[in-house]
């Protein structure tokens, strides 16, 4: 077992780091403060292929592996959690399901511009009454001639309004499963600008405030029949598969936030003097930093392992990376919360001041324990697997 990175991955990390430092870091405070979507950064990421990293070159992507994509989200999130999640939601939640379940025509029409970054993607599963419980879906799609007619709403949608292409889940009927009547869920591709597709409230959030989080509203929204993604009735499987990948992206975001907070805290504790010496000279600080660094390293190994498992899946679709993704997300998210909380404490009063960015990292970290499956859901996924 070799834990060293390949030359490709070393170079890719250097690239993402340089980009993050030059492009994302200088505006991180401002976009958090003003809740501004960093369009200029997204445009630059599109130009350099960051929005199609794991997509094959024949579909306009970069032809890289999941680990490269993970390192991109990680490095961006070290300096700006918002920028990290924009890439993650686009790539894992919109690009991936179209790449995996799309027809050739759908790939040409949607995957190519998404991978090139000409279009931005989003994913709509969550509804006011359906988060963790996907069966609570209320949005309906009815086939009417050559069109599906969508009615309902989605909430908390990352990249909402800013994205051009949306993967949307809706109830298309009822099916009997083990004697129970269950909702039949299907997935669809919906373009921004389709009549009947509008945006509701923009959420005012605790963290990742530069990312656009919107309610999506469908009122007699008619989309072509061929925009059904995957088979009719397979929506739940598509959503679960997509979220498995999404969890690796969020795990990478959480890892990046934790690493960013740790790096800043190490630098600060060396610099900050109290009682005549730097606070890094006190054993309490040393032990805290040691614990933080150890947990960050453990999180990194879990996240990279999940990425490598997904890489195996791309070669052999029988391989499952669901548990690895759940463990990576569960652990990295909880480490991000713990490390950023300790980082604020080690910064003392300065940690509470926005200029020092540590408090933002703590606010950004919290969402990683919630979205794309709460930590509780990850524990359900993991325990179901080990107890089966």
């Amino acid at each position, binding site marked *: 077992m070799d834990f060293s990175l*390949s*030359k*490709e991955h070393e*170079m*890719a990390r250097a*690239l993402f780091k*340089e*980009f993050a430092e030059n492009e994302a870091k200088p505006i991180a405070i401002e976009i958090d403060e003003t809740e501004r979507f960093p369009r200029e950064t997204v445009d630059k990421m599109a130009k*350099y*292929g*960051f929005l199609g*990293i794991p997509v094959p*070159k024949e579909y306009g*992507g*970069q*032809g*890289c592996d999941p680990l*490269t994509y993970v390192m*991109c989200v990680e490095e961006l999130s070290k300096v700006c959690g918002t920028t990290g999640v924009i890439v993650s939601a686009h790539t894992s939640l919109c690009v991936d399901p179209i790449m995996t379940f799309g027809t050739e025509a759908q790939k040409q029409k949607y995957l190519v511009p998404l991978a090139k970054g000409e279009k931005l993607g989003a994913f709509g599963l969550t509804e006011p009454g359906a988060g963790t419980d996907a069966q609570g879906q209320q949005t309906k799609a009815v086939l009417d001639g050559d069109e599906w007619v969508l009615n309902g709403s989605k909430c908390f949608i990352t990249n909402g309004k800013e994205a051009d292409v949306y993967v949307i889940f809706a109830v298309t009927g009822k099916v009997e499963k083990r004697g129970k009547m269950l909702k039949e869920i299907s997935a669809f591709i919906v373009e921004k600008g389709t009549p009947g597709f509008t945006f509701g409230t923009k959420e005012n959030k605790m963290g990742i405030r530069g990312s656009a989080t919107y309610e999506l509203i469908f009122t007699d929204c008619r989309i072509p029949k061929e925009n059904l993604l995957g088979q009719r009735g397979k929506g739940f499987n598509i959503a679960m598969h997509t979220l498995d990948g999404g969890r690796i992206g969020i795990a990478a975001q959480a890892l990046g936030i934790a690493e960013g907070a740790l790096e800043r805290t190490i630098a600060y504790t060396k610099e900050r003097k109290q009682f005549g010496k730097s606070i890094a000279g006190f054993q309490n600080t040393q032990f805290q930093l040691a614990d933080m660094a150890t947990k960050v390293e453990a999180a990194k190994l879990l996240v990279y392992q999940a990425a490598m498992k997904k890489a195996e899946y791309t070669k052999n679709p029988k391989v499952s990376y669901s548990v690895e993704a759940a463990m990576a997300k569960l652990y990295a998210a909880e480490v991000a919360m713990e490390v950023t909380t300790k980082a604020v404490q080690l910064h003392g009063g300065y940690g509470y001041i926005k200029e020092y960015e540590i408090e933002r990292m703590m606010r950004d970290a919290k969402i990683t324990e919630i979205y794309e499956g709460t930590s509780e859901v990850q524990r359900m996924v993991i325990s179901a697997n080990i107890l089966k």
Partner: protein
Amino acid sequence: MKVIVCVKQVPDTKGGVKFNADGTLDRAAMLAIMNPDDKAGLEAALRLKDQYQAEVTVLTMGLPKAADVLREAIAMGADKGILVTDRVLGGADTWATSTTIAGAIRNLEYDLIITGRQAIDGDTAQVGPQIAEHLGIPVISYAQDIKIDGDKVVVQRQYDDRYHMLEAKMPCLITALSELNEPRYMTPGGIFDACAAEITTWGRADLKDVDDSNLGLKGSPTKIAKASDKVRKGAGEKVVPESPEDAVSFIAAKLDEKHII
């Protein structure tokens, strides 16, 4: 159109500087980056590729690990990389370096050669013009803008408080300033391609029309008397003046004391 860009791997100023016993830089022991002026030259060449489909070849001389800058250049969009490396070429000064690079370039077809103005380690600005001299082609140095007009290049050359507009018929050599442009980033896919790309490696035997007496440390007329890391500044003296006037008086007195004014 064929463009050759000469790049140099230089010590990263963020890392420490280390020396060999003979006073030359211990390059193997230092973190390394592509020299900034050379990177601007590469970007200029890549823009010619974007605009005129120019073929861009990147060439460097150095230790085997200098192949890293060639891979970086390929990941940015260059078509191929050539590494000139050989023990007998080690310790070269600007004369021996330009002799070596010219000897390598004689094997290649080209319309334009672009080098950086100078490298941040040696700061001589001599290698580019010397290569042109060895090859018998015109040189335009300190380029801050490059345009192609038929078989000519039209270059803005930086010159103190003004610039000169110069034309030269190709083939010719241009030395580029880092102010010339903002170099593009690599792309992730470009990195994977660059790592899979074959880097052509040449040694002494591949150099054309060069004499051994002009190569390596032995062929270098420059002798380094002494080299040292930059002298670290002390903690300084901290004063808290009561008013801006006091601050000015204090600074003026200090400058006077040191005979600066």
